[in-house]
């Protein structure tokens, strides 16, 4: 399946065109994207570190995960809604950028993992999930989000 015509269409959308033709729109959206990423980083780190026995150790993982869940979802939504206009403005470039495809693949994996396995493990009663599995979940989560951020930055370079 050739996706290039679809990406051509993305690039030609009015939103993409407006962002591309503006001097300041892309940088401003990019700043909000970066701030959202930082907040996502914090919310993900606190829970993953807790699962690794670091950070807020005297508080149960489930409580932290519950308190931080809305912030994680809010930062993810910020990232998605700022990411879309940036993508539309340079869809063809993204089409030919390997880091873009890695990022999208990792993003789908990271989001799915966060909302399914990791959420289940984080909210489980203490002792219900084997400690090794809890740690593995945290490591996978950190690795996936690290990959998303890393690949995202590299869209600018390749």
């Amino acid at each position: 399946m050739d996706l290039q015509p679809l990406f051509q269409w993305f690039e030609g959308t009015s939103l993409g065109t407006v962002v591309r033709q503006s001097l300041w729109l892309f940088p401003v959206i990019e700043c909000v994207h970066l701030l959202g990423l930082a907040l996502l980083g914090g919310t993900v780190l606190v829970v993953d570190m807790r699962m690794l026995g670091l950070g807020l150790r005297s508080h149960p993982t489930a409580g932290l995960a519950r308190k931080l869940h809305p912030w994680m979802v809010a930062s993810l939504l910020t990232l998605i809604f700022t990411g879309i206009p940036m993508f539309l403005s340079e869809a063809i470039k993204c089409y030919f950028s390997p880091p873009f495809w890695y990022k999208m693949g990792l993003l789908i994996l990271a989001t799915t993992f966060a909302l399914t396995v990791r959420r289940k493990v984080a909210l489980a009663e203490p002792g219900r999930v084997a400690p090794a599995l809890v740690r593995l979940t945290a490591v996978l989560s950190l690795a996936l989000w690290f990959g998303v951020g890393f690949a995202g930055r590299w869209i600018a370079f390749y």
Partner: protein
Amino acid sequence: MNLQPFFQWLDATPGSIAIRESTMLYPIVETTHVLTLCMFLGLIALLDLRLLGVGLRGIPVSHVAGRLLPIALFGFVLMSISGMLLFYSGSVKAAGNIFFRIKVVMIALAGLNALLFHFTIYRRVAVWDYDAVPPNKARLAGMLSLVLWAGVVICGRMQAYNWFK
């Protein structure tokens, strides 16, 4: 004091040239800067949100500060090292950039805000540790921290776009 000759000398050193002209090194340093920024700022933001009484409610402020700040500081060190390497790779250009200059001032102000917080209202944290909404001075410190660090990130990002060149 004119630092221009020093920055010119710095830019001509082999290390600076190596980072600037490398196809891998520069992106790696830049990516490290962005990701460690997330580590630092993400954790600081959570402390700030706790101080504002909107995030991590129910968790004592001293726990958030005591357990998360050391990890945030670890991120800060990595962010600073990678940031200095980025500066080192093109100091003349950076030093002459208005966004970079504003950024440096904002980092200093954010540092000052953190120091003031720790040596004033935070000294009496035992009194308000469990408050869902901390005292005004603590909330002000949290708000200033959020605004200043967001400003630092925005200036850092804008630095790449030489609008006023």
